């Protein structure tokens, strides 16, 4: 029926030409270029030497790359538990009839997620600072001087230290997503269960959780995709240090390409990021699908 008013092909083409050109130029051309450069030994100068898949063989054995990948996976796990878990608990609290000023709480807790990740990194760098940081001030204040540390320089705990700002920043974000899912559920379900004598924890596990499972799975996907591309926080806080104890894939590729100007191998790492991220996100999606199917069966 729309065919009668369908514009001429020329018009459609005219409208689509510029956006498609821009999009291909900024997304697909670079992707192809990365694949191409990854086959060369290239230090950024005019000289490029074709070395086939040598860079990829190096990448497979590159312990720093796999260590960085491990850190990305650690951050994914920490944030799924920390962000979505805590957000769920806080949503249960905020949803209670007894709580006042819900709108204000939402506005305030959502706020950190709108701030640039670099700023978050700098703010927390100050919080963790040895001499002037809030953490060490607090430890001294409660009389635990022995626990005072140079937080950003402790190899054993550094990943936990850099995970905290990440978790903190997005709790409010997931909280609001989960809240909007709950508010779309019929209020009567909650009231009836309350009258039936289910207590708050029973209600959370047996009623709220199953009803918003779908939204929670969306959150998990967002969380995985978000933490595979962490860069700014780490750049601002530790630059991957001490050593490579807090390095992540994107930062490693940046260091390799721009600080050691090894463009060829840097491109190989880029392709490595592309493949590992897609595999992980795809894997999580499959798990999620299998899980939702299974639980719908009963």
């Amino acid at each position, binding site marked *: 029926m729309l065919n009668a008013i369908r514009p001429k092909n020329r018009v459609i083409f005219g409208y689509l030409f510029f956006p498609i050109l821009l999009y291909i130029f900024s*997304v697909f051309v670079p992707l192809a270029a990365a694949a191409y450069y990854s086959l060369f030994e290239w230090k950024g100068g005019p000289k490029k030497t074709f070395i086939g898949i040598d860079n990829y063989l190096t990448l497979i054995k590159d312990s720093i790359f796999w260590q960085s990948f491990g850190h990305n996976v650690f951050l994914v796990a920490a944030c799924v538990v920390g962000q979505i878990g805590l957000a769920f608990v806080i949503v249960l609290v905020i949803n209670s009839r007894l709580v006042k000023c819900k709108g204000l709480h939402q506005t305030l807790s959502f706020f950190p997620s709108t701030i640039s990740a670099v700023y978050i990194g700098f703010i927390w760098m100050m919080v963790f600072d040895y001499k002037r940081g809030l953490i060490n001030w607090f430890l001294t204040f409660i009389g635990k001087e022995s626990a005072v540390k140079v937080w950003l320089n402790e190899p054993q705990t550094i990943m936990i230290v850099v995970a905290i700002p990440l978790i903190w920043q997005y709790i409010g974000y997931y909280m609001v997503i989960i809240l909007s899912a709950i508010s779309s559920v019929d209020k009567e379900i909650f009231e009836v269960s309350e009258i039936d004598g289910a207590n708050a924890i029973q209600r959370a596990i047996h009623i709220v959780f199953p009803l918003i499972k779908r939204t929670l799975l969306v959150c998990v996907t967002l969380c995985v995709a978000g933490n595979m591309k962490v860069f700014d926080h780490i750049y601002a806080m530790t630059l991957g240090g001490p050593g490579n104890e807090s390095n992540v894939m994107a930062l490693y590729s940046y260091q390799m390409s721009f600080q050691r100007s090894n463009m060829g191998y840097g491109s190989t790492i880029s392709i490595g990021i592309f493949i590992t991220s897609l595999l992980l996100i795809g894997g999580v999606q499959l798990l999620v699908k299998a899980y939702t199917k299974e639980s719908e069966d009963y």
Partner: protein
Amino acid sequence: MNDKLSHSGRAVGQTVKTGVLAAFLNTVLIIFSFSCIFPLIWMFYSSLKSVTEFNKDIIGFPTQISVQNYINLLTNSDYRILPSIINSVRTTVISVIFVVVLGFIVGYILSRIPFRGNRLLYVLFLMGMLIPIHSLLVPIYVIFKRVGISDHWYTLILPYVAFGLSLAIFLVDGFLKSIPTALEEAAAIDGSSFTRTLFQIIFPICKPILTTVGIITTFQCWNEFSFALVLLKNPKLQTVSLALTQFSGQFSTDYPRIMAGMLLTMLPILIFYFVFSKQIIKGMVAGAVKG
């Protein structure tokens, strides 16, 4: 068990219990919300201290309020506070306009007009949401340098618009599915051209979803850091996050001054957030759940 007991002895016991619970829940939430906003408050009153006063006592309120940090930052052009804000505002505004307009046009055409390759294009644009953008960092740098478009005022706009388009097209396409085609048909019968129908009839209808697109893109562009870091070398073109990293390297021990700089460069987006927080929260959540 508790619930059963309170059924019989309602009145007093129940009120006390509810009161305690209410106090507890409210306290938990207030502590949580406060922790989200506290760094901002701490930065604000600390930026009014001198560095010596701050180093003596990092948590106390300033005994003597001094705006010296702000005056220094704004009067010394080496710090590039104002130029970086102007750069960020310009990049963000232009990118958002392009993402909204192009996202709307492409989303509409792909959603409504059948032609050969339509689905292929749609999939191509959606793939942009899957591609981890950091894997494009190195090649985009190389290509932009080769073509000679790195280090210009418009450099960042190109990737920002391209990366923003995917979600925009996806959201517009989804939104149009719920809008009947009757309006366009009526307009066509009345002799309205395609272009006129597109901008005068469909565009206003899509306002809610385009607002969402605009909000999400605004924050994405304003907060973007890695591409700015790689593509811009000229200090005059620095965006706020770039200016901040340089600036805090320079004064690594002068926290009050760094805090003043952070607050100044955050100001535009802070005002934007607290004025429109309701729409922003709604828009970002809608975009996240559908995307």
